[in-house]
């Protein structure tokens, strides 16, 4: 099953469960407080997911490791390599 198919399946399953419960189909009458929470749940989850995404990406950008040492080391190694290669006869 492709990832897309998995997502569609999950949406259909959860969506139909939510619709059935909020509209009282299948003869199920949920107590009022339950329905009041259930009805806006998809919207609430969507907003939460959005916040989680922003928060996670923001955190990861902020903690993105800057390799200053690696850059410095590389520059000095480039000098070393150029000197060595010139000695061996390389013409740049």
């Amino acid at each position, binding site marked *: 099953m492709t*990832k*897309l198919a998995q997502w569609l399946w999950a949406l259909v399953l959860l969506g139909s469960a939510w619709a059935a419960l909020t509209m009282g189909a299948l003869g199920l009458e949920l107590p009022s407080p339950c329905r009041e929470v259930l009805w806006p749940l998809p919207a609430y989850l969507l907003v939460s997911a959005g916040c989680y995404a922003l928060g996670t990406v923001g955190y990861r950008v902020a903690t993105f*490791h800057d390799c200053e040492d690696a850059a410095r080391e590389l520059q000095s190694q480039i000098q070393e390599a150029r000197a060595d290669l010139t000695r061996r006869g390389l013409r740049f």
Partner: protein
Amino acid sequence: NFSGINYEIIIIDDGSPDGTKDVAEQLEKIYGPDKILLKPREKKLGLGTAYIHGMEHATGNYIVIMDADLSHHPKFIPEFIRKQKEGNFDIVSGTRYKGNGGVYGWDLKRKLISRGANFITQVLLRPGVSDLTGSFRLYRKEVLQKLIEKCISKGYVFQMEMIVRARQMDYTIGEVPISFVDRVYGESKLGGNEIVSFLKGLLTLFATT
């Protein structure tokens, strides 16, 4: 040479205008063709075919793919090898996002795009690998051959597709943190075009794998 690892280097040059071919030819003379092999091509033909071209002449059992502009540092190769032995992995992937992996030379915008794209990729593809667009990897030779046969995308998406297909085929993948030093030579630009084709490629993989 100190590491005692048996190696050869194969350079694929697609007519780079910056003199790469000349330097590579000289290096081949200096170190000998059993150590350095230059396999040039007429024009820019794409990554997948470059890998195939290189493999035709490779005599080893494992292949390390890396960029030649010093953004990928060879000092990580022994770590790749060690990791591969540790878990007998089919693939070892360098990651900029985990452990003490990282980058140098990226501004805030570039980091944001990188992390954002990686996040979307993780959510949609759940690849089990932290850096999907990286191109510093060690492959078992047979594994690389099989994967290339199956992959059809280009550019960044090609690197992603390799990992996704590898997962599908139940290959094992290990990770090693690497530092990616960008813009040592030349400009590093990430334009709107690349972003669009990345998203298109991502959605294609999402819908077909």
